[in-house]
């Protein structure tokens, strides 16, 4: 099944793209997807602690099980100060 992944803010600079489509197995969690993306875009791995992850318009924990057609977003912490 396929999920869309969007990058926002300077994560687009880190990956060099704003959106990728990933093919994953049923049962795949956000954590597994993220591991794959970090292998593909090593600069993302350095941001692991601060990165925020959403599915659709909601934040989701790393244990979230992906569904076909999910839109995943990865982005840095939102504006501060």
């Amino acid at each position, binding site marked *: 099944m396929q999920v869309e992944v*969007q990058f*926002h*803010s*300077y994560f*687009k600079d880190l990956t060099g793209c*704003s959106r990728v489509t990933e093919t994953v197995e049923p049962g795949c969690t956000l954590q597994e997807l993220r591991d794959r993306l970090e292998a593909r875009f090593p600069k993302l791995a350095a941001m692991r602690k601060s990165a*925020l992850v*959403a599915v*659709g*318009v*909601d*934040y989701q924990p790393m244990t979230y099980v992906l569904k076909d057609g999910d839109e995943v*977003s990865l*982005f*840095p912490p*939102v*504006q*501060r*100060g």
Partner: protein
Amino acid sequence: MKRQLIIGPEPIDEARLASERVMSPEMGAVVCFLGVVRGSEEGTSIAAIDYEAFEKMAVHQFNLLFDEMEKRWPVESVRLVHRTGVVKVNEPSLWVEVIAPHRGEAFAACQWLIDEMKRVVPIWKRAVKENAEKPKR
């Protein structure tokens, strides 16, 4: 609770927003906040800030915050405008208004909303240097 949310590139028109205010006779307190772009960011001087929003999620997250606000305080109305795109130094990028019966709850709700917004609403800042081109996206 009345809600109005605008996320977009248009300049914030304070006078019009003030003239459109509606409040019932039981309300005694209006707290407004304007967040204005400062001329320096981490010690270096800047010309503007470029705001990028993941708009669909930002709208949803703002509405979750409004839901929570309504549970916590007797707020009658919340209105919030957040600019996107390039906002020059000295111009407002954020306008928030909270109306409640008493000032304590109006101040508390308004500050809470802004603090939470900066934590969960996906809008990012990027400094635009003086004499620089608009940054690439």
